[in-house]
């Protein structure tokens, strides 16, 4: 009997390792290939970390990087300003609307980006008319695009505390609504807000379809453009962007983990 169990256990271990290796190869092989390809030209990586020289050599790429970083930051801010007070308010005062708000926030997930662009094009004709054709105007579309992920993150954070009771306790102690949100609710959903922001940044840095189809510039658009003239550089930048996204997601899981430790 003991032999059978040991054999089964060994089989399971082998299976586990097999899965891990297959998946590892599946994910890591392309990355390794990218690394190998981008290091064929020994000047690629040193150039990538030398910002002044990079922006001289590839001005389009530099513009794309700056636009994407600005878009990511602005989208995160706009998303938080819109979503945090709304979700808190819905929970406190309009619980009946919660399903509706959730549906509304998850809607962008069900609409393919290409369809979204068809709808956005006429809207952006007006945006261009009023605000000009700057790539930063993409922030509005991106805010909608990140809603499903950000909403999930913030909603999960709010579910972890008894918002209603805590808010009522603060009110009875003399706190106005602003104080309730800023000093009582926000500190308790800090890690949820952080994850929402990280997800937003990761998503915006990886966005291509909308920017490309609306003729705006961002990191991915400039990488694609670069691919036509300098393949190694474009692959190196792609890899760097991927690694940055990994780091962000890692920070995100760390932020979530530290909260669990506290409990």
């Amino acid at each position, binding site marked *: 009997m003991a032999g059978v169990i040991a054999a089964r256990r060994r089989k399971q271990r082998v299976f586990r390792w097999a899965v891990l290796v297959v998946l590892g190869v599946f994910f890591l092989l392309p990355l390794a290939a990218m690394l190998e390809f981008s290091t064929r030209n020994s000047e690629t990586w040193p150039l990538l970390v030398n910002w002044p020289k990079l922006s001289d050599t590839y001005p389009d790429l530099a513009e794309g990087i700056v636009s994407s970083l600005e878009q990511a930051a602005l989208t995160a801010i706009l998303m938080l300003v819109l979503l945090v007070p709304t979700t808190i308010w819905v929970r406190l005062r309009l619980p009946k609307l919660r399903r509706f708000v959730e549906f509304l926030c998850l809607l962008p997930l069900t609409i393919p980006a290409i369809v979204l662009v068809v709808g956005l094009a006429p809207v952006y004709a007006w945006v261009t008319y009023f605000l000009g054709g700057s790539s930063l105007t993409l922030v509005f579309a991106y805010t909608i695009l990140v809603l499903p992920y950000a909403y999930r993150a913030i909603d999960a954070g709010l579910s972890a505390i008894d918002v209603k009771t805590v808010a009522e306790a603060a009110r*009875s102690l003399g706190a106005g609504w602003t104080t309730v949100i800023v000093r009582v609710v926000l500190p*308790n959903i800090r890690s949820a807000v952080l994850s929402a922001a990280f997800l937003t940044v990761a998503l915006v840095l990886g966005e291509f379809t909308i920017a490309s189809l609306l003729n705006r510039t961002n990191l991915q658009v400039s990488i694609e453009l670069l691919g036509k003239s300098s393949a190694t550089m474009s692959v190196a930048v792609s890899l760097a962007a991927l690694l940055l996204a990994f780091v962000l997601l890692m920070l995100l899981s760390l932020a979530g983990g530290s909260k669990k430790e506290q409990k």
Partner: protein
Amino acid sequence: MSGVAVHLEGLRRTFGSVHALDNLDLEIAAGELIALLGPSGCGKTTALRVLAGLEDADAGRVLVGGKDVTALPANRRDMGMVFQAYSLFPHLTAVENVEFGLKLRGRRKVPGRAAEMLELVGLSSHGSRYPHQMSGGQQQRVALARALAIEPAVLLLDEPLSALDAKVRVQLREEIKRIQTEVGTTTLFVTHDQEEALAVADRVGVMKAGRLEQLAPPADVYQQPASAFVADFVGLSNRLPGIVSGPIISVLGTELPLVTPAAAGSATALVRPEAVHVTPDPEGGASVLTSSFLGSTSRVTVTVGETLVVAQVASSLLPSLTPGTPVRVTLQPVPVALDLSLS
């Protein structure tokens, strides 16, 4: 510190078709502790939340110290509140929780006052702990300290003990009584636990369907219930058939005075188990059906003819009252209420 009188006037509140408050009037004297008691859905919590400003009344006024506060939002009403659910701010330590209200009011000597309040609730050594590091009872103590720290005009306790286990509950309710007496804050205590209400309150208000059925000192509510509902809700009662004539009702051969006069004829009297005496007697005409040991007292069920009577007896008598023992049942001539729901 002396308390402030509170007056609820003609409060009405409906949720859909339910009258949570149906023209409720309640006066709380300065420094008094009133317990609102009633089954769930009777409107007691709504009454407290309207007083706190967390719920709006459809009609009626709330007066605190003679001042109309009906239109004031909760954060400007000057009330300390302890909730049924744990309500401490999870990201703040015990002492920071207590300081929260003080800082909002821009008080000086905040740390001193907070330490003093924690000492009042017996937790001076737990100031630096976070809520999740404390037991439920300790959290509710800190919540009480936090509510009292701001020296509120009125203290509101919304079933603060119902989430705690039995022993802590009894301990903490005595402590609440002690602290309330010491501080002298006018207090409204909402509970569905009759024992709790009777133990802590200066007066108990029994509520039913958004109205006060009776508002009286605990002993009166228990001994002279104003209605069958009160008699039934507060304490246990036997429902015994009897004949009313004038101000008395004749039950099991004993004449008992009535709490409120009633029309002559047959009726059902509500008789407390401790008003029933059971003595072994071969000629008594009754017999023991079951008996259960409850500690210092015991409960015996007796059949008299076709009627079941529950009696409370000293546990020392239990060995002589085994099931089947012939006994005599006598009733103590204390005032009783009639159960009008059956007649």
